[in-house]
C-alpha cells in the first residue's frame, strides 16, 4: 500500500526467515566477528582473482541463508541483489550458481535496502513465497576498480572510508517467525555538488536525511517510534553532518538512537579512517549484528537507511559531482506494530 509519495506500507509484513553473512579477514579482526556466519582468513577465498572471491562471498551468504531457513534452492523464486563492480558481475555469476530467477540491482552501497524493499513488496503482494535478497562488496576488488591498485602507495585522507569485504543475504517469506519488514521508503537521487571521492559520507548525508524525513512524514510516525535509526555507511563525517541537518530541520532524533553501520563493524585502532563503506557494509551489519540483537530483544523497531554514492571512476574523472541515494526499510520484531 502506498503511503504518501514514496512509502510502501506492507500490510502482510514479510518475514526475514533467515540471513547469511560472510566476511573477510579484516572483518574477523573487527568489532562484531561473532555476528558473521562465516569468516575467511584469506582475502582471496582460494580463488585466483578478487572478482571471483567476490562472487564466492555472495554465493556463500545465499547458501547460508537458505541452509539456516531450511529452504532448498529450487524453492527460492527470486534473487534480488547487487554489488559495486562493473555490470555487477560477481552477483550475476553467483546467481548463475544458485540458478533462481534473478533481478540484478544497482544502488551502490544502498543496494541492500533497495533489494529488501523490492523483495518485501513482491512478497507482500504474493508475488513470491521465498525470495533471496542481499548485497556484497569486496575491499580490494572495489579498490581496484574505483581507486588505485591495492598495492599502490596513495595516501588516503582522514575522510576516506574502508570498503567492507563481506556479503549479507536475507531469505524473505510471507509466513514464518522472525523479524518483519513493515514499510519502506524509496529515496530520490540527491546531489549537493560535492566532488571529493574520498569523502563519501559528506556527500551521502543529505540523501539519508531526505529519505528519513520523508519516511517519518509519510508513515506519520515520530522518530521516537523507532528504537534505532541506522544508516548504511555515512561514517563519522556523514553521521555528524546529518545530525546537524536534523537539528536544523527540527527533526527530533537523538544521538543514541541514530547509529551508523559503518561505525559498528570495525573496532578502534583499525586503519579505517572515517569508517566503513561498501554495499556489504549495511548488508552484513543489518543481517548479522542488528538482527541478532533484535532477536535477543535488545530493541524492537529499527529503520535501516542504506546510503549509496552513485559515482563511477569515469564520472569523477570527468569532473562530475557525486549524486547520492538512500533507501529506508523498517524492520520490527515483537511488540505492537502499526498496521
Amino acid at each position, binding site marked *: 500500500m502506498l503511503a504518501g509519495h514514496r512509502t510502501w506500507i506492507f500490510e502482510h509484513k514479510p518475514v526475514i526467515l533467515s540471513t547469511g553473512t560472510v566476511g573477510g*579477514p*579484516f572483518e*574477523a*579482526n573487527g568489532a562484531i566477528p561473532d555476528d558473521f556466519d562465516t569468516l575467511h*582468513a584469506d582475502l582471496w577465498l582460494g580463488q585466483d582473482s578478487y572478482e571471483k572471491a567476490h562472487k564466492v562471498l555472495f554465493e556463500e551468504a545465499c547458501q547460508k541463508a537458505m541452509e539456516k531457513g531450511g529452504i532448498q534452492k529450487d524453492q527460492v523464486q527470486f534473487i534480488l541483489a547487487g554489488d559495486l563492480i562493473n555490470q555487477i558481475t560477481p552477483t550475476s555469476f553467483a546467481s548463475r550458481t544458485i540458478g533462481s530467477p534473478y533481478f540484478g540491482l544497482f544502488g551502490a552501497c544502498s543496494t541492500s535496502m533497495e533489494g529488501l524493499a523490492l523483495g518485501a513488496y513482491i512478497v507482500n503482494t504474493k508475488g513470491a513465497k521465498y525470495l533471496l535478497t542481499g548485497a556484497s562488496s569486496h575491499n580490494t576488488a572495489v579498490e581496484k576498480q574505483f581507486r588505485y591498485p591495492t598495492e599502490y602507495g596513495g595516501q588516503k585522507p582522514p575522510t576516506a572510508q574502508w570498503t567492507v569485504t563481506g556479503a549479507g543475504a536475507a531469505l524473505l517469506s510471507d509466513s514464518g517467525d522472525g523479524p518483519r519488514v513493515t514499510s519502506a521508503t524509496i529515496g530520490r537521487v540527491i546531489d549537493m555538488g560535492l566532488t571529493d571521492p574520498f569523502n563519501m559520507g559528506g556527500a551521502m548525508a543529505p540523501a539519508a536525511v531526505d529519505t528519513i524525513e520523508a519516511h517519518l512524514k509519510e508513515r506519520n510516525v515520530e522518530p521516537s517510534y523507532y528504537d534505532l535509526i541506522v544508516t548504511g555507511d555515512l561514517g563519522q563525517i556523514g553521521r555528524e553532518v546529518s545530525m546537524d541537518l536534523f537539528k536544523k530541520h527540527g527533526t527530533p532524533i537523538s544521538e543514541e538512537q541514530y547509529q551508523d553501520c559503518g561505525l559498528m563493524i570495525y573496532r578502534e*585502532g*583499525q*586503519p579505517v579512517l572515517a569508517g566503513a563503506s561498501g554495499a556489504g557494509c549495511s548488508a552484513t551489519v543489518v543481517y548479522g549484528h542488528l538482527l541478532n540483537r533484535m532477536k535477543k530483544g535488545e530493541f524492537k523497531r529499527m529503520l535501516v537507511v542504506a546510503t549509496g554514492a552513485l559515482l563511477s571512476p569515469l564520472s569523477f574523472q570527468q569532473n562530475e559531482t557525486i549524486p547520492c541515494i538512500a533507501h529506508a526499510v523498517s524492520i520490527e520484531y515483537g511488540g505492537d506494530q502499526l498496521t
Partner: protein
Amino acid sequence: MEVIFLKDKITTLKNLLFIIMVIGFVSGCNGNQNEFIQGNSTFGISQVHTSKPIDQSVANHAKEKIIAREDITDVKAVNTDKELMAAIKVENFDRFRLKSIEKSVKSDLEKKYPDYKVFVSTDKKIFWELEKVEQRLKKNDMNKKNLKNDLNKLKSLMKEQT
C-alpha cells in the same frame, strides 16, 4: 590467527619505520662529523715525496696551491711527466658552483704548468682512486707503466657521461 594480529603488525611496522628513521638521522649526523674532522685535518695535505717512478713535486705544489683556495677542503693530485691529474673536494655550500670551480682550478693549473696536460675532477670516484694511487706511490710499489695505466683508466671514467 594471522588476521587477528594484523593491527599489531601495522603498529610494529610503524615503530620499525620510526626506528629506521632515527637511525638514519643519527648515522647521517655521524657521517657529517667524520667528514668535518677530515676536512679540518687536511690542512696538512697529503704530500708524496718520492722520485720513483716519477717525481711528484709538481703534484705537491699544485696541491698546495689548490688547497689555498677557500672553497676547497681537500685535494689529491698525481703527475706523470706529461700529465697532471687533480681531484678536489669542495666546501658544501660552494658545491652549487661546482662546475665553475672545477673550470677555474683547471685554468689556474694550466697557466702554472703549461708543460703538463691538466685534468681536474670534482668526482668522488676520481678522488678516492687518486688517493689510492698516492698511497701506492708512497709505498713505492708502483712503476711508470702502472701509473700511466691507472691514470688512463681514470681519464676514461671522467670522459664517461651518464
